[in-house]
């Protein structure tokens, strides 16, 4: 595709079938190709950071996994089962609403702008889906929600509305809300971008502790290079809808092979 193809093919060797698998996935908006024949395999419990310049397709990867976007071609699978398609006879057809709903149960997402329900307290935000989607009783949902809110350090804010919480606290509620559905895969879409710098730390600390406590597979679009380097098992550098370079975090940050990766990292470091 270009002369800067990665020369260290550090794509992790995965013994088991990948939990998340993109195969030749393409997404276009009109004449603009946002993802171009993307191949990406993420193993169970792996933590992958996605970095790259604006418009490189990072967020689109997460949005497609969350079924917020359709794909134009290719196939996405979760745990060996197609996400965007479903089997019909001996061929795959576009997934219907029921299939998408079932598959979505494996995935949780935390958004850049939190997207909490403003008319519900922190507790109710975390109880809504377990009650209405999983059919949990009020007592069970309450127990699960308050336990998760305690885990993210908000045990004393259960009855607060989002407008009564700081940005960092709101984002932690959003993390607890997504975890309440017990997903296998958690998607974090620039979760600290809308926060003041002094509030980023508390959110990243929560993600860090979740990574240790829960056996979650995580995909994280981030501009926090320090966090990506310390937290992720693998970092993927996106450019123009493709993975230009990927590899273990330390290797990619300390010794990037691709010229675009080098330029990007230089620009980001200069900006800090």
């Amino acid at each position: 595709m270009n002369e800067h193809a990665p020369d260290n093919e550090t794509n992790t060797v995965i013994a088991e079938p990948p939990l998340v698998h993109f195969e030749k996935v393409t997404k276009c908006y009109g004449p603009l190709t946002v993802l171009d024949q993307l191949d990406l395999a993420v193993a169970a419990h792996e933590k992958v950071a996605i970095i790259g310049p604006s418009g490189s397709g990072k967020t689109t990867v997460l949005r497609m996994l969350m079924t917020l976007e359709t794909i134009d071609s290719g196939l996405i699978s979760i745990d060996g089962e197609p996400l965007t398609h479903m089997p019909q006879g001996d061929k795959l057809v576009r997934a219907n609403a029921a299939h998408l709903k079932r598959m979505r149960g494996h995935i949780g997402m935390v958004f850049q702008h939190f997207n909490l329900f403003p008319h519900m307290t922190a507790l109710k935000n975390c109880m809504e889906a377990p009650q209405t989607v999983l059919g949990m009783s009020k007592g069970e949902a309450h127990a699960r929600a308050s336990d998760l809110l305690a885990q993210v350090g908000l045990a004393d804010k259960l009855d607060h509305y989002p407008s009564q919480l700081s940005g960092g606290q709101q984002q932690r509620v959003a993390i607890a809300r997504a975890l309440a559905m017990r997903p296998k895969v958690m998607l974090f879409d620039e979760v600290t971008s809308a926060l003041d710098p002094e509030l980023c730390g508390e959110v990243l600390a929560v993600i860090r502790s979740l990574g240790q406590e829960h056996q979650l597979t995580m995909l994280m679009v981030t501009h926090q290079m320090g966090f990506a380097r310390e937290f992720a098992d693998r970092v993927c550098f996106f450019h123009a809808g493709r993975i230009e370079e990927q590899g273990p975090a330390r290797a990619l940050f300390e010794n990037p092979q691709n010229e675009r990766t080098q330029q990007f990292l230089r620009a980001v470091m200069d900006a800090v």
Partner: protein
Amino acid sequence: MSKVWDWGYAWEAFPLLAEASIITVKATLMGFVVALTVGLLFAIGRMAGPMWLRWTVGGVVEFIRSTPLLIQIFFLYYVMPEFGLTMSAMVTGVIALGLHYGAYCSEVYRAGLANVPKGQWEASIALNLSTWSTFKNVILPQAIPPVVPALGNYLVALFKETPLLSVIAVLELMQTAKILGSETFRYVEPITLVGAFFLVFSLVSAALIRRLERHLNASPGRRI
């Protein structure tokens, strides 16, 4: 020459008009319930329905808004029986008022729904909420409070249109006043009392709506 205002006659007419005012209030409240329901269905159909439904509802709403309420009342009362649908004057009046103001309310709801950030829909999808749960528990509680004042204005407007029901002989305030006038050839007192009644009801409604609005705005769950 008889005096312009006769207090004795006014007191005589008052109980009859007070009785008729119950019909007016009934027609208003029932018509408004129909308008709120139909308006919400129109708005959701237009926003979230399949394309054929969006077009159909859009056409119906435009048609209703572009034709006079008086003609709609006549049509429902005098033309629909030709197609086998006969309704009492009161039911016809309530349906006509409800449909007419439902078309206007649907635009208000639409503005409220469009004002809910896209992220709320996306969070609902990410949490796997059904379309019904999303509307009922997430979108409508955010979309409706901001449009309560606009909906309240339509309640007052609908109330002020109820005299139109006199054309199909619903015994509401105006019709009663006309009957009183035709019997005694004194119109000043009954018509003035009808005007006073409408004024009082409109002012009370507006005050209640303002109070409701203040209450909704005071909630900490209201998006700022």
